[in-house]
């Protein structure tokens, strides 16, 4: 187990380093930061002073080190448009995004697993067919379109649910369900095929030979074994979900980091983008790590090395 944890920690670290390098490189590629840090009519000498002050005259790896140091302190600079610390702005919006994706994560995981199990147990019946069609539809329809249709039907037409903003719990329903759809479809398909896979295992045959009731075989043994591969991809599902919030936030006017970043993108507000990307990356990597570690709880082969 110790070795497994170390491996996962290592991977998380590498991921964060790579993303920080990407951000850094992109910030440099997009132009001389001096252009927007110094007054427009600054002289060559003044520019050099600013450069020296910001460390921009140093070699690139020193600059990167400075950048990482700043990032670790939460200093990504001020938003160009709002002239407020970018990190703070993102931090303010983060809870809304986390709330949305977490609820979608829970909904999609639980429903996905339940539907997958049902489809596998009713293999080749109309239930299986319907669930599989639903799943492939869920993986095919763009979430923004589903969102718009939902707004059209439940908001504009039926007027059952609010469609924009984040005021009370009822504001969460449409966005989180829309967001959950794609992930739910993936989890369902994976659960279904994992369940079918376990059905062919020798130990299932042996359990039947022992006279263990079918319900116990399914819910105690097959389900737990099927969850092993499902759990392995939940981390990936979660990053899909966090990514998906960006679009959902736009559709439903949800005040999260995603919308903030897209706005920042349209305004070329680089510090804000950097802070947003870094913070989202960190939260995704952390949650991924948690999911990976929970793997050991299910599978004794990893727990006991």
């Amino acid at each position, binding site marked *: 187990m110790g070795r497994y944890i170390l491996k996962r920690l290592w991977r998380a670290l590498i*991921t964060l380093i790579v993303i920080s390098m990407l951000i850094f490189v992109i910030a440099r590629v997009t132009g001389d930061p001096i252009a927007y840090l110094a007054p427009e009519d600054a002289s060559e000498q003044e520019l050099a002073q600013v450069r020296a002050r910001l460390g921009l005259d140093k070699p690139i790896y020193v600059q990167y080190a400075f950048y990482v140091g700043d990032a670790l302190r939460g200093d990504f600079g001020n938003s160009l448009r709002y002239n407020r610390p970018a990190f703070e702005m993102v931090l303010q919006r983060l809870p809304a995004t986390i709330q949305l994706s977490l609820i979608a994560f829970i909904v999609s995981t639980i429903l996905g697993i339940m539907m997958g199990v049902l489809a596998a147990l009713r293999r080749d019946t109309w239930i299986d067919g319907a669930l599989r069609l639903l799943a492939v539809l869920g993986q*095919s329809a*763009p979430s923004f379109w589903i969102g718009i249709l939902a707004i059209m039907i439940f908001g504009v037409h039926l007027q059952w649910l609010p469609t924009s903003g984040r005021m009370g719990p009822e504001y969460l329903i449409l966005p989180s369900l829309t967001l959950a759809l794609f992930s739910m479809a993936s989890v369902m398909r994976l659960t279904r095929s994992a369940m079918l896979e376990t059905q062919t295992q020798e130990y299932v045959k042996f359990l039947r030979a022992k006279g263990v009731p079918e319900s116990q075989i399914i819910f105690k043994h097959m389900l737990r074994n099927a969850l092993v591969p499902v759990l392995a991809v939940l981390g*990936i599902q979660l990053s899909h979900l966090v990514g998906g919030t960006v679009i959902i936030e736009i559709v439903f006017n949800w005040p999260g980091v995603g919308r903030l970043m897209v706005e920042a993108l349209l305004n070329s507000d680089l510090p804000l983008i950097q802070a*947003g990307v870094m913070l989202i990356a960190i939260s995704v990597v952390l949650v991924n790590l948690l999911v990976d570690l929970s793997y050991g709880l299910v599978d004794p082969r990893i727990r006991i090395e």
Partner: protein
Amino acid sequence: MNGAIAPTRERASPGRPSRKGKWRSLPWLAIIMLAPVIIFGICGPLLYLHDPTTIDLLNPQKPPAWLEGGSAAFPLGTDQFGRDLLSRLIEGARVSLIIALGGVMVAALIGIVAGMASGYFGGLVDSLISQAVDVKMSLPAILLIILIGAAIGGGMTTVLASIVLLFWADYARVIRAETLSLRERGYVQLAKVANASHIRILTRHILPNLFGTCIVLVTLQVGRAILIEASISFIGLGIQPPATAWGLMVYEGRAYLATAWWLPTFSGLAITMTVLGTNLFGDWLRDALDTRQSSL
């Protein structure tokens, strides 16, 4: 009996299932969904009723022909500038197809080469490629897209670059795993014993056996690429007006939800149908070719 040198000729095992059921087992639903997209994608300009970019301010927001106020001249109605929706959808099909196929092909090429090299040679090449794949897998796609968008702005290049950067890793991961297992097969070992070069082993023994996996992956990825393209266009980083793409049409139509519901509805429907078609086709291929793949 001295059946040694001239032993019996065993009966060959019965071949594949008969050809009879073949027509019926084709994925007709998928074919019906994909056929219009492919036809429009290839000969789009020949089929326009109107030029998709011509603004016709006399006919703004016309509903589809079968509704009150619609006209046969604009079968699916018009947008806020009076442009014919059907013609714009056809134009969108072309753009979507080019981007999806082009991006996926480039990604497949990079990913397959990387995956084969990684799985076959192992060592440092493998460590680097695996690490890169790992990093990609644990990051949300949208972050990469935003970073690319931040670096080079919106447009076709951003979409293509995003698709390639996002998808190569999927190929590399799957192909690496398959190559690893193929490498240990008896026939690869025997090819080495027969003095076959690495090139020969990779092209004659490994690549042909990856074919099924590649085809299935490409099919499924085309669907995902269309979705990604639509999403990128939707957040404004993709195809820029006045050119058009399906995602952009949904985005533009979104403002007219209350007055012209058909604008976002039909363009979204086009995306969904196309992706659904490729997904169904891919699933069918996977079963037909019997390649083992996770359903992600």
